[in-house]
């Protein structure tokens, strides 16, 4: 178990162009489950690979337990990694796959055997130890990949989208298993994903990345409730936060023809107004009035799309089981004060 510290970490490829990762700074605490979240190409995997030692670090420092690791080869960093593709050795049995990393370390045979069996017991892999990976199901392979990391008893576990090759149902249950595993091992884990549900449910903290930079770091609900940028706001939540162009003037916000009171003092001028679909409440005299242009009944809830006069983008509304209005009808909405987020129209940064 260990802390992992990144200080202004950056990656620039020899070919030139924009850096793949820049200025990434955070510290993962002892035993923390830390999630790197972002769309593909945001630099999260590169960051993880730099921590693993699979990519050379071109800028900044990486430290594990306070020791600089930039020049230390992967094998000496005492980390273990679970790959998206699982990277199981197809020519080895499950047992050998797990033991492979230990053999290199000149560990006594008996100890290797003990560790493999313990890990297999934790993951329920005992019946499959003699099988080759191609004879396993996707979920079983995924567990072997985890088992290969567990036997090593490393300081840090790294996960690179380990669930994305599983089908939806399996993904949910495996998520739970991983959470239990983290509790059981109490190990430091860094987990890369593009799936916000995984990030929200698993992470002690999440770090959202965008274009190679950190957009926001925080506890999942904090990030959800107070997104630091329009990017974070738009990335988290399903459907995501409504982000609409508005103008602040005279202590009010003008959104098309509607006018809302300011939740806080902000400078006058164009802004982006954000409001989560579930925070909009239909009331007969609400300030936001529009025409329903789409109705998506999902059973437990209904998603409505509204067109507000003078606003280009449609507004999404999350309602209960029954739709408050039908297609083509007009509806009026209100949003509570503290549910209105204002962002700088140019930079996307939070104003409130």
């Amino acid at each position, binding site marked *: 178990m260990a802390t992992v510290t990144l200080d202004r970490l950056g990656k620039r*490829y*020899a070919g030139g162009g924009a850096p793949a990762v820049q200025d990434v700074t955070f510290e993962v605490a002892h035993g923390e489950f830390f999630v790197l979240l972002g769309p593909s190409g945001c630099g999260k*995997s590169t960051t993880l*690979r730099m921590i693993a030692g*699979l*990519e*050379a670090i071109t800028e900044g420092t990486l430290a594990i337990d306070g020791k600089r690791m930039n020049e230390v080869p992967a094998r000496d960093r005492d980390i273990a990694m679970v790959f*998206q*593709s699982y990277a199981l050795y197809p020519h080895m049995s499950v047992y050998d796959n797990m033991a492979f990393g230990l053999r290199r370390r000149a560990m006594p045979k008996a100890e290797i055997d003990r560790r493999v069996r313990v890990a297999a017991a934790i993951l329920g892999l005992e019946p499959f130890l003699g099988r080759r990976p191609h004879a396993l199901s996707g979920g079983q392979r995924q567990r072997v990949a985890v088992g290969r990391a567990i036997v090593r008893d490393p300081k840090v576990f790294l996960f690179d989208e380990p669930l994305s090759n599983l089908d939806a149902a399996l993904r949910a249950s495996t998520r739970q298993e991983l959470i239990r595993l983290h509790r059981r091992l109490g190990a430091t884990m860094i987990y890369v994903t593009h799936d916000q549900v995984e990030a929200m449910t698993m992470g002690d903290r999440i770090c959202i990345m965008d274009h190679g930079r950190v957009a926001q770091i925080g506890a999942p609900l904090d990030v959800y409730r107070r997104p630091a940028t329009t990017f974070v706001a738009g990335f988290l939540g399903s459907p995501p936060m409504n982000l609409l162009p508005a103008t602040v003037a005279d202590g009010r916000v003008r959104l098309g023809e509607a006018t809302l009171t300011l939740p806080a003092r902000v400078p006058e001028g164009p802004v982006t107004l954000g409001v989560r679909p579930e925070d909009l409440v239909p009331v007969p005299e609400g300030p936001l009035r529009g025409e329903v242009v789409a109705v998506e009944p999902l059973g437990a809830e209904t998603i409505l799309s509204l067109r507000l006069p003078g606003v280009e983008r449609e507004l999404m509304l999350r309602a209960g089981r029954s739709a408050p209005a039908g297609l083509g009808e007009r509806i009026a909405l209100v949003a509570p004060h503290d549910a209105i987020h204002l962002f700088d129209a140019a930079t996307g940064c939070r104003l409130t």
Partner: protein
Amino acid sequence: MTSPRERPAWGAIVPFLLPATVFYLGLTAYPVIRTVWNSVHEVLPRREAYVGGAHYVELWADDTFWRAVRNTVTWALVAPFLEVSIALLLALALYARVPAARILRIAWFTPVLMSYVVVGIVWMWIYNYDWGAANAILRAVGLGHWAQPWLGTTDTALPALIVVTTWMWTGFNMVVLLAALHALPTEVIEAAELDRCGWGAKLTRVMVPLILPTILNLLVLSFVGKMKIFDLVWITTKGGPLWSTETVSTYVYKRAFEWSTFDLGYPSAIATVWFVIVMSFVAVLTWMVRRQQKLEY
């Protein structure tokens, strides 16, 4: 999911590439250079002397060399078309779901696995005037007056050898074409069927154009193979009669190791010229195939 590769890890690359590099430089690149060097020298067992372009001048006027070039190029142009067109016919026959296609595919492929030495002897027997199978069949069907010493007359020797290479290589081409046919998306063929295309139209308008890149590759491959041919000729005719089956390879070998001159310079000049010819043919053909494929996709 492949990651962008690391900057060169020379410490790992060098040991991996070194043995191959040594083999390549020592036993391929150096001999090529040495041959070119030879070609401007007289290379006798106990004497080597610079002769400049003398060998090349002699080569220019060497009828046997040009005869050999003509024979080889003829072979290299005729054989690929025979092999590939017959192979296409056979592949289509097997594609049409005949029984035992798998076994036939394996059986037809067999000749290509045999040594040219073995093949050469077998076919010398087949072409034997008195009891060879070729004449025996002709006599059996009442065409005895067509019986020939097939490898013994200037008119028939080269065609007879071309038949042998066709026999050897058609099965190979067939297997490749069959694989290409099976790899065709079934929707395309089904679409053609829905369009009420006849079998012939389906073939010429849909299937053949789709496997055209494979066909071109096979033609080039066969062409290159024939440009190298040596063993078969050496075993059967040694280039005779009257140089009618002389190939560049047999002539190089004759001049280097069979003629009583012992000079390795002149044959090296032949080899060098031939090397340039073959490589330029290959370059042009590759370019044509590439261009063709660009048109296709």
